[in-house]
């Protein structure tokens, strides 16, 4: 019922909404992550996203299965884009559909938080001054099952 993908093309929110919708469902909640023009006060011009593709797909599949178990069988479609994205480009879209809004919204929140916590995807920001930097916001939480290095 659910579907996940890591892709190298632009994302389409209307397509994901159409994909998860069903005559039995009254509520579709979506999340669109977008490249923004600054981070921590530094002007950003773009972001390189990269992924450990097969594992990212497996983790996303596990996450949407956990969401369905926790939120009344919520049906979810997730696409994460990789490659070089410009300001305004969508990096991730999640659509969650259910008969009722509580499970659609609950499932949506669960998927975005878990995605950020554990899916092996990385980003390197490009700044207006020409420099680039890896973003390691979630450092400690990214190692749920093994010890850390360094």
């Amino acid at each position, binding site marked *: 019922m659910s579907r996940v993908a890591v892709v190298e093309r632009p994302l389409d929110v209307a397509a994901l909404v159409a994909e998860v919708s069903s005559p039995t469902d009254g509520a579709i909640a979506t999340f669109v*992550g977008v490249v923004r023009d600054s981070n921590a006060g530094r002007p950003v011009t773009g972001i390189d*996203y*990269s*992924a*450990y593709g*097969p*594992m*990212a797909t*497996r983790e996303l599949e596990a996450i949407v299965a956990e969401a369905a178990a926790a939120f009344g069988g919520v049906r979810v479609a997730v696409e*994460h884009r990789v490659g070089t994205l410009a300001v305004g480009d969508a*990096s*991730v879209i999640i659509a969650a559909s259910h008969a009722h809004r509580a499970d659609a919204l609950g499932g949506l929140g669960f998927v*975005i938080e878990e*995605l*950020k*916590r*554990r*899916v*092996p*995807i*990385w*980003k*390197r920001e490009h700044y207006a001054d020409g420099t680039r930097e*890896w*973003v*390691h*916001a*979630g*450092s*400690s939480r*990214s*190692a*749920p*099952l*093994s*010890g*850390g*290095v*360094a």
Partner: protein
Amino acid sequence: MQLNVLLFASYAEAFGGSRMDIALADDATVADLLEELQAMARARGLPPAAVAVNQEYAAATRRLAPGDEVAIIPPVAGG
């Protein structure tokens, strides 16, 4: 045992490629691999990483085998 581990993001950049060979004892665990990496990572200013075995996060006590697909997972930043 000779392991060929997968590298990503800051680790791939710091070690100059998407793979790296590491020699470990035949009964090595994930913890042993992390210990082996530790000094190298610290010298390069890399953040703490996790280890995945066969595309799943691995516990520190897990035994490594020659055929395993082993990956170093720097802090993730998807979304």
